């Protein structure tokens, strides 16, 4: 069987219904109303774009750091505490398998004015009146961290699993206390997993749309939300320009990371295990 013939139907299908549509849309950024680079040239002076881009980037950085901080200990427990591993796997995968929409809704329920969080703090006497958390940047950061955390845990756990246990025994046998073994053996050897997790979470966070639209602040618009807004107003040239910037940013970060050693496979993994 000719390999090309087997792949051809899918390639043609995806060209027709996905790749060419996206390219045709992106083309509007340089062909509307005539061939021009004016839409890109205008970006550095566009305060709405600059604010949106910095909010998107900042949110992604915060979410990536929070996921790393919360994800590493869980990955370590997953690999080092075999007795608990099945429970941990279920607790990590259950939210992972739940749709982004449902998880964002869950945070609306938790963080609302009369949500569980506020009610608990009021009941405990820690607050006099409900705190505003829903529809703030903090709500976006919490919900996005919750949604992206498994993408950090799984690659790190993968890297930790591949560490030869005899290295850890050698380290402690030579007199290193556990924290030193962790800092000088485990942590450096898990770096490919950390890098893969950071890359994955950051790139996915850049494109988030549903969560910030549902739980985020009315004025903290992400790049994805601005693009949707432009389409609603039929500003196709502007939407296309912003899409190209968002896509180029994501691809640039992936390209940059491909040059780092040990990261080649970050995006070759199955994103939903």
């Amino acid at each position, binding site marked *: 069987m000719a390999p090309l013939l087997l792949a051809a139907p899918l390639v043609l299908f995806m060209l027709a219904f*996905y790749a060419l549509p996206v390219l045709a849309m*992106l083309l509007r950024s340089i062909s509307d109303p005539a061939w021009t680079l004016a839409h890109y040239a205008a970006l550095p002076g566009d305060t709405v774009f600059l604010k949106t881009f910095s909010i998107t980037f900042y949110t992604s950085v915060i979410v990536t750091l929070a996921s790393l901080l919360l994800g590493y200990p869980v990955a370590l427990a997953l690999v080092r505490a075999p007795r608990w591993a099945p429970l941990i796997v279920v607790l990590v*995968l259950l939210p992972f398998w739940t749709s982004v929409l449902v998880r964002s809704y*869950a945070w609306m329920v*938790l963080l609302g004015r009369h949500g569980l969080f506020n009610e608990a703090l009021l009941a405990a006497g820690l607050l006099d009146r409900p705190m505003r958390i829903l529809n703030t940047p903090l709500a976006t950061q919490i919900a996005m961290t919750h949604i992206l955390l498994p993408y950090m845990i799984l690659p790190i756990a993968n890297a930790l699993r591949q560490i030869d246990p005899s290295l850890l025994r050698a380290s402690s046998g030579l007199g290193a206390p556990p924290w030193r073994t962790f800092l000088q053996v485990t942590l450096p050897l898990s770096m490919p997993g950390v890098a893969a997790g950071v890359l994955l979470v950051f790139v996915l966070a850049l494109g988030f749309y549903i969560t910030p639209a*549902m739980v985020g602040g009315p004025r903290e618009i992400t790049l994805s939300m601005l*693009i949707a807004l432009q389409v609603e107003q039929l500003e196709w040239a502007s939407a296309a320009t912003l899409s190209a910037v968002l896509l180029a940013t994501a691809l640039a970060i992936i390209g940059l990371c491909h040059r780092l050693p040990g990261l080649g496979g970050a995006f070759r993994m199955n994103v939903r295990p």
Partner: protein
Amino acid sequence: MTGLRLLPATAVGLILLFLAFPIVVVMVVSFSSATYLTFPPPTFGVRWYASYFGSEDWLRPTWLSLWVAAVVVVLSTVLGTAAALGITRLPRGLRVLVAGLVLSPLIVPGIVVAIGIYYAFAHYGLVGSPAGLILAHTCLAVPFVVTSVTANLAGIDPRLEQAAMSLGATPRATFFQVTLPLIRPGVLVGALFAFITSFDELIVALFVSGSGAVTLPRRMWDDLRFAIDPTIAAVSTLTIVLTAALMAGAHLLRKHAERQLSWSAAEG
């Protein structure tokens, strides 16, 4: 290796609580008897499930989502499995190019895909029709089939196919009697992922659904703009249970396939 110390164990426990708690809360709220969102519910009941199953406004989008996802499964499994068989046999340069195209929906931000498809489909009259959703969702679902089947293919001994051919089997017989049974777990796992990808998909649906083809996630999204009444909690719980069951099935299938592969390797 020492066990978990108390402090790290508590920290890990709290992080796991952070992960699972919101899902649990949605499930508990769905059994509330109150007419508004409150936690813990004053008393329990199934009124929100009754309101979901009694409302044509909810059931119609549910059926649409289910059958769109079913068609997406068929299309993406057939196209994706054939492509996976082809891609692994392509020369390197071409393979990178084809794999790049096929896997790119995993990386390209959802909004960019959605408005690109909306832009083109509006010209073809595909907005507001189930056909538009099916075509778009197939493109989003196919990477999961291709990665799953490719991973499965990588674990298969090529000598099995060679043996079948040298014993006189036609390429067609070799495929249906040797290759396909070997990659069946990968195909099934890919099909389950494809189903869930389509069933849960929202961003493309926001643009391509129009008013004529409202899917379940789109219906939930529209509802959330006006009120967050507990019907959505009931719908959410049902979708959580459905996806969890399918994913658990995929997980078991994969484990089963791994075990079979390691057995046949051990026997060989």
